[in-house]
């Protein structure tokens, strides 16, 4: 202790408190180095069982929701002695249920729990699942009242799902690697796939490299960066290979030891949802791992993403859906061949092996993503203009020498998307955001004209900078027509240019259309609501559209 300080005597800090301190440290800094340092510091103090759970939660995994949000809200209402609407109002203002509970009920100044993280999870939280609701309520509400804010918040977060504290799986792997003095890629690989957070897992995670593979374990995906600069900056086109950028589900197909695993990028096993793909995989030799895209595909063409969505939601699929929306695996990389990890080979060599493996396959469950040949960037740019007719998002550019990278490393894989669709639409509703943006209206609903009324067409969350968000928030508060809980309807006055990636007919939406990835391109203060698009004009954007119309449409926004 420094000489001229009078400090309270150090209290013994429990492992659960250490974990909540780690959470706060991660939450309070934006520096990745500081985050890694905080995690390493925690791992040095944690027991193996706690470390396993910490890695589990921090890397974004979650225990299946133990108690539904509406039940928690009703218990909160009962415990708080506040009218139900006031609890709801508080929740709407905070934007996070776990936090709202802690803010309303936690006792300030309490010391917090003496238990370890693993004790909390295994002996207190998980057993809730099999209890009758009255017993759950008695236990949970007692915790709410006994804990201080930080502990209550963490316990609520664990109970309701993900921790979400702004660290990626990659960053957690970096911390574990630093702690255990192992290569980062090895740790990351060991963290992939399904595992249970126990002592055995932790010891295996930090054990020395034995060159092991677990047959189901996927490799970390290589991610592309959006190409913002001109393609000319990439040097001669001969150093690059181009493929269409498919709009499907990124997936990794593993065939090892006579078994097949199909992993999504979110590391979910999705094989049962795509039986035609897993059936095709049975013909692959053992020790094969493919990277590619799951697409809805009918004969010679990719189907709209909205069709694929019908398959995503189902754990198992019936015959009717299988025949209406057939799917295939569009393979574009080979990571493991003949049981050997070939990720360090240059792209051209992996591509050659991939072509040798399935290039000649007639199985309808597979296709190989064709190369898009062009001898100049200019020629490639022209081909890219046909993306919309092909139902693709643009082009992927892969460096011929590029190894299969771990995560997003700039300079090897670029996504070169076509210009987005744009329309002018009027703001109709606003809602306060969540988390970082609680208290501010950041979620907006926009409409376009149908005769004399505005029909909602898109919700958008991003695209404005902080000062615009603040300005708009003030405007929204002054121009609220009606409030429906956290949602406000506002005067139809503000016009925004929206950009989106795709558009399809939809029976689920009032407007009759659904747009993909809508976002705000700019705030058009120069336009009046009457300048906004009509629904008819928007519907005309739906494919198929002659190429020159699209070109005209996208170029007009630059004027």
């Amino acid at each position, binding site marked *: 202790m420094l000489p001229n300080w009078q400090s309270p005597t150090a209290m013994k800090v429990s492992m659960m408190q250490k974990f909540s301190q780690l959470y706060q440290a991660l939450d309070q800094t934006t520096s990745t180095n500081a985050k890694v340092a905080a995690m390493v510091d925690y791992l040095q103090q944690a027991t193996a069982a706690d470390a396993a759970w910490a890695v589990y939660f921090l890397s974004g995994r979650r225990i299946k929701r133990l108690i539904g949000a509406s039940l928690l809200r009703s218990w909160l209402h009962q415990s708080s002695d506040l009218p139900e609407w006031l609890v709801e109002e508080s929740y709407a203002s905070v934007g996070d249920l776990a936090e709202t509970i802690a803010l309303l009920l936690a006792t300030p100044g309490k010391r917090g729990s003496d238990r370890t993280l693993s004790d909390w999870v295994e002996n207190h939280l998980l057993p809730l699942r099999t209890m009758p609701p009255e017993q759950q309520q008695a236990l949970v509400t007692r915790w709410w009242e006994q804990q201080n804010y930080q502990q209550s918040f963490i316990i609520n977060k664990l109970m309701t799902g993900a921790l979400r504290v702004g660290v990626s799986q990659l960053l957690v792997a970096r911390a574990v690697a630093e702690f255990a003095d192992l290569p980062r890629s090895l740790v990351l690989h060991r963290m992939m796939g399904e595992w249970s957070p126990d002592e055995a897992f932790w010891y295996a995670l930090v054990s020395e490299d034995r060159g092991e593979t677990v047959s189901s374990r996927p490799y970390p995906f290589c991610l592309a960066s959006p190409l913002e600069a001109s393609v000319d900056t990439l040097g001669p086109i001969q150093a690059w290979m181009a493929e269409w950028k498919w709009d499907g589900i990124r997936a990794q197909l593993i065939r090892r030891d006579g078994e097949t695993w199909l992993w999504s990028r979110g590391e979910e096993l999705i094989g049962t949802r795509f039986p035609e793909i897993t059936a095709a995989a049975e013909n692959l030799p053992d020790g094969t791992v493919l990277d590619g895209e799951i697409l809805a595909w009918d004969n010679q063409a990719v189907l709209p993403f909205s069709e694929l969505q019908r398959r995503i939601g189902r754990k198992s699929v019936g015959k009717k859906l299988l025949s209406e929306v057939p799917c295939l695996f569009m393979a574009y990389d080979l990571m493991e061949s003949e049981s050997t990890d070939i990720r360090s080979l240059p792209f051209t060599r992996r591509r050659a092996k991939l072509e040798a493996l399935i290039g000649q396959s007639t199985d309808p469950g597979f296709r190989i993503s064709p190369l898009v040949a062009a001898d100049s960037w200019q020629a490639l740019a022209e081909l890219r203009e046909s993306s919309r007719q092909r139902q693709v998002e643009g082009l992927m550019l892969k460096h011929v020498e590029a190894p299969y990278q771990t995560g997003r490393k700039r300079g090897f894989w670029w996504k070169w998307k076509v210009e987005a669709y744009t329309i002018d639409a009027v703001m109709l509703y606003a809602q306060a955001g*969540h988390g970082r943006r609680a208290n501010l209206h950041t979620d907006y609903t926009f409409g376009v004209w149908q005769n004399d009324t505005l029909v909602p067409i898109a919700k958008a969350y991003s695209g404005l900078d902080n000062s615009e968000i603040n300005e708009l928030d003030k405007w929204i508060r002054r121009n609220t027509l009606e409030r429906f809980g956290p949602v406000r309807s506002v005067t139809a006055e503000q016009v925004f240019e929206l950009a989106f990636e795709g558009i399809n007919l939809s029976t689920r939406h009032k407007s009759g259309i659904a747009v993909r990835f809508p976002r705000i391109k700019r705030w058009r203060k120069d336009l009046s609501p009457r300048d906004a698009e009509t629904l008819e004009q928007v519907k005309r954007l739906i494919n198929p559209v002659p190429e020159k119309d699209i070109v005209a449409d996208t170029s007009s926004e630059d004027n």
Partner: protein
Amino acid sequence: MVSEKSAGKSIRIAHPVDDLIKATDTGLACDAGDFVIDPMKRTRTAVISHAHADHARAVADHYYASESSVPLLKRRLGDDQDIRGVPFGQPIRLGQTQVSFHPAGHVLGSAQIRVEADDEVWVFTGDFKRDHDPSCEPFELVPCDTLITETTFALPVYRWQSGAEVVAEIAQWWQDMQQAERPAVLFAYSLGKAQRVLSELRAFTDRTVYLHGAVYPLTEIYREAGIDMLPTAAIDLDDRQKKYAGELIIAPPGASGSTWMRRFPKASTGFCSGWMRIRGNRRRRGYDRGFVLSDHADWPGLLKTIEETGARRVLTTHGQADALIRLLREQGMDAAELAISYRDEGVDDAEI
């Protein structure tokens, strides 16, 4: 006061008069007393609740204010202004009304304004808090018929820890930064919050704290008023030799992200505000640390004050009071929002 009520009532029935205090473009206007409380536009006579810029503007010919706020007001409005200091609790006559100032516990000299006319008592809380604060006069409860209250933090999620507990966290952070040999730059409003921290820190250390140019002169005024605080020194930007590693620096929030910060390489930044209670605000601001320290009443403080004043009618000034008004109405009270706001709605960094 209660015993003479009936007379006042009969007059009002015969000549239905307007409210004693009304929200106007100029501010909270009292026609019977011919003055405006905390005016925002040109007027003759101002009655000022406290020296923060959103309440004390140089727009009046004459000012009345609490005695202990006069040095701060002169600093803010100019030495040549006609500012009359009135001791707390001492009534003065303005027009047909009797006006007195009562401590609001917000900052040094901050006052609630009590206005009495025709046996009717109105109190404007100004900005206030109920929590202990060694740097200003403690809040005094003033019974009234109509209470005009601030409602900056009018939701039940806003409950404060004591200032001493929060400042203990600040002291710990400072100590950590001392060990890490990094400057600790604390952003706090330059009038009130900064001095409250300096005063509470006395319990932990006797080290010198360095002050931004906007904080230093105001702190000197506090010191002259006899407030016990840590020793302070103004930051001399020209002194290139001085290193601030391990030192605590207090600056107004506006200095955050300015070129001024370049003087403090590797600084850890902290922000003192009631808004820091909400995680989203903490994260959005991008400070390394958020300390939940407010000079405004929290939710329990607002409810307690409304109840204890015995007011039959509650009017609010700061917006964001929908929930409070609805709750009071459900409890059978006459509550409404006044069309006046001393700031923009939404999260305000300064929280003054």
